[in-house]
């Protein structure tokens, strides 16, 4: 084992993981950052997405030991970098838009959806609906039928998700 240094949600941390320790296990079991969900554990569903150096990655399919020096953002730390949320809200602009547009039901897929959307908006600030649908190909939701998720991301992109009492449901 070798000591590695990660930055998780802007805090540095030293770890000494066994070779087969998955990032999702480090996050959930060791650091108790349980906002990242484990859905399929087979790289199919996208519930476990986190940002590694700004790129979305399935945390069920990378080993912690590969990541020395990496900066990781989980859903718990997203608001701090997606900071168009209202006032002192703990939510970022995408999370706020999901709330306003009813972009979640059970919430199991939501942190992955929001992480994925944050990467899209960082590179494509004004995506079309088709671009959003294509982008979310790796994120499975069993509840919403996707419509309100798309609406929420569109709203976050245009800024219309952050106003007072925004329109809900499309």
């Amino acid at each position, binding site marked *: 084992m070798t000591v590695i240094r990660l930055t998780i949600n802007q805090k540095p941390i030293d770890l000494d993981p066994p070779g087969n320790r998955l990032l999702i296990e480090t996050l959930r079991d060791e650091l108790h950052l349980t906002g990242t969900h484990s859905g399929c554990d087979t790289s199919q569903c996208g519930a476990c997405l986190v940002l590694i150096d700004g790129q979305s990655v*399935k945390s069920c399919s990378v080993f912690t030991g590969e990541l020395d020096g990496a900066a990781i953002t989980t859903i718990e730390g997203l608001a701090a970098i997606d900071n168009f949320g209202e006032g002192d809200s703990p939510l970022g602009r995408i999370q706020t838009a999901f709330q306003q547009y009813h972009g979640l039901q059970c919430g199991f897929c939501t942190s992955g959806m929001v992480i994925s959307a944050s990467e899209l908006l960082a590179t494509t600030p004004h995506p079309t609906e088709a671009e959003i649908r294509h982008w979310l190909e790796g994120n499975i939701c069993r509840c919403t039928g996707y419509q309100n998720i798309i609406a929420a991301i569109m709203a976050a992109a245009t800024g219309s998700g952050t106003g007072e009492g925004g329109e809900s449901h499309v």
Partner: protein
Amino acid sequence: MYEFSLSTPTNLADAVAQQQDSGGKYLAGGQTLVPTLKLRLADPGHLISLRRIAELRTVSEADGFLTLGAGLTHHEVARSVLVQHRLPFLARMAGAIGDPAVRNRGTLGGSVANNDPSADYPAALLALGARVVTNRRELPADEFFQGLFATAITEDGDESELVTAIRLPCLRRAAYAKFKHPASGFALIGVAVVQGDEDQVRVAVTGSGFGVARLREFEAALSQRFAAESLASLSLSPDEFASDSATSADYRAALAKAMTADAVRQIIQGFF
């Protein structure tokens, strides 16, 4: 998963030496290997991560060839300005593999070394007549890919042999047409068509179920006359395709013809 250790060498020589010392396995993007490990289909003892090896992540151009490092992610290939200019169809193909998170991790070398019978890169490389470079040798794609998950490396049995780069001729009249499996996103059938020098055409199919292969009859007809109509009187034998839970051999054979025609039309219409 079984227990194993993990190392992250920063140059090729160290990676190869660590493989030879440990008898372990190379880890690239992990998008195929990690699920395999979870199923306990492999017990490598040690993994050698290739991600920190800068020499595996370069793109260069010389003498009409692009050389792409094996460690480039699908995302990096899709976004490379050089690839977009010289082999636009390849950039588009890489940008449509899996989903964004798969493209952020999965690599060219991992896909080529794995030679999944439904993977996209092997078809593109075979149709282009690309060359696979390893730490030991350089082979044409026709010799490298040898069937279901089989390559010149797996057949040779030297587990320290490592794909380091792919050399691709910059042939612009090339296209890839993919019919996706609606759930997995992998190719149910994918066909790459390349019209090379002196109008010689190469056609390669992935998703047949038996490993990437060239479609020689189609090649001959298209080399004579490059038009979708040249395929009209030809049909592929279902014996060359597998039946499985996704679909029948007959349907795969029909799809392979339709995708070939589609790729030919893309080239004729200048969408390449």
